């Protein structure tokens, strides 16, 4: 059995470095269904374990794929997450839903994988950032496609497009953006998880957002034309 990474002690309802999303603690408490399932899990009921895995695997695999891109790594992260959760069942206090708890564990498992596996040199993000003339003006002319983009989100293919553009971001920038804008973590929390300063996180998030805007631009600019 692999040793539990330091600083990621599942079983506490909030993992070190991953505080609860603000304002949601009360409404995110474990449900009666969770409580019943938890009792069965703690009693060692095999069907309960299978139910937990079958109920939550699809979502956890989707979350893992956002972070680690490689499908094998995503599956391994999900497996790691469930095994960590099984070991920590006695320490889960019910302060959040089981699904939320598992979600946090799989994010932590993904970050561990990203930290430890050997990485190829990351593609530079510079090509996706805005450029400027010597006087400080943008070189590009921008179109405000924001109104039509929000309407377009009703379509499945639009959501898939946005997801695909996020996947194109260089890894360290994608990770920062996912932790900030999707997981809702504060900059200092992200800094602790990624072992960088909060200001470095802020810069990464901002550049990731700028790069994402660049990737989305040609698609939504086309949509916004009358």
């Amino acid at each position: 059995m692999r040793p539990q990474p330091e600083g990621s002690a599942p079983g506490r309802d909030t993992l070190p470095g991953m505080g609860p999303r603000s304002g949601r603690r009360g409404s995110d408490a474990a449900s009666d269904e969770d409580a019943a399932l938890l009792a069965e899990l703690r009693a060692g009921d095999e069907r309960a374990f299978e139910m937990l895995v079958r109920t939550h695997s699809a979502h956890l695999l989707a979350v893992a794929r956002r972070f680690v891109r490689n499908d094998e790594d995503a599956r391994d992260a999900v497996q790691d997450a469930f095994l960590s959760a099984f070991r920590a069942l006695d320490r889960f206090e019910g302060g959040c839903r089981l699904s939320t708890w598992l979600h946090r564990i799989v994010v932590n498992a993904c970050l561990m994988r990203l930290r430890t596996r050997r990485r190829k040199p990351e593609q530079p993000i510079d090509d996706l950032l805005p450029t400027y003339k010597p006087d400080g003006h943008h070189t590009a002319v921008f179109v405000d496609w924001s109104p039509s983009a929000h309407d377009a989100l009703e379509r499945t293919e639009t959501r898939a497009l946005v997801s695909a553009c996020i996947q194109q971001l260089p890894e360290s920038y994608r990770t920062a953006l996912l932790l900030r804008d999707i997981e809702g973590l504060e900059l200092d929390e992200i800094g602790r998880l990624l072992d960088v300063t909060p200001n470095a996180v802020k810069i990464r998030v901002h550049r990731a957002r700028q790069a994402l805007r660049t990737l989305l631009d040609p698609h939504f600019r086309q949509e916004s034309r009358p």
Partner: protein
Amino acid sequence: MTCRELADFIMSYLTGDLAPEVRAEFERHLTLCGNCRSYLATYQAAVELSRRALADPAAGEDGEVPEELVKAILDARRR
């Protein structure tokens, strides 16, 4: 304030962390520069799109779980 400087201040502007005088310069530039107004609007849209696209359970991300993964997890638990 140039367009370049405004772009560097966007994140602090959106979180309300700019000093009052810098915020005033930021907003003054926006009133004068339609290109930066479009850039800011699409920057904010990109953030919102990513949140909504990935928060939606029907986003197409959650597919079938490979049976071998379920089996591997349950087998590993029993070891």
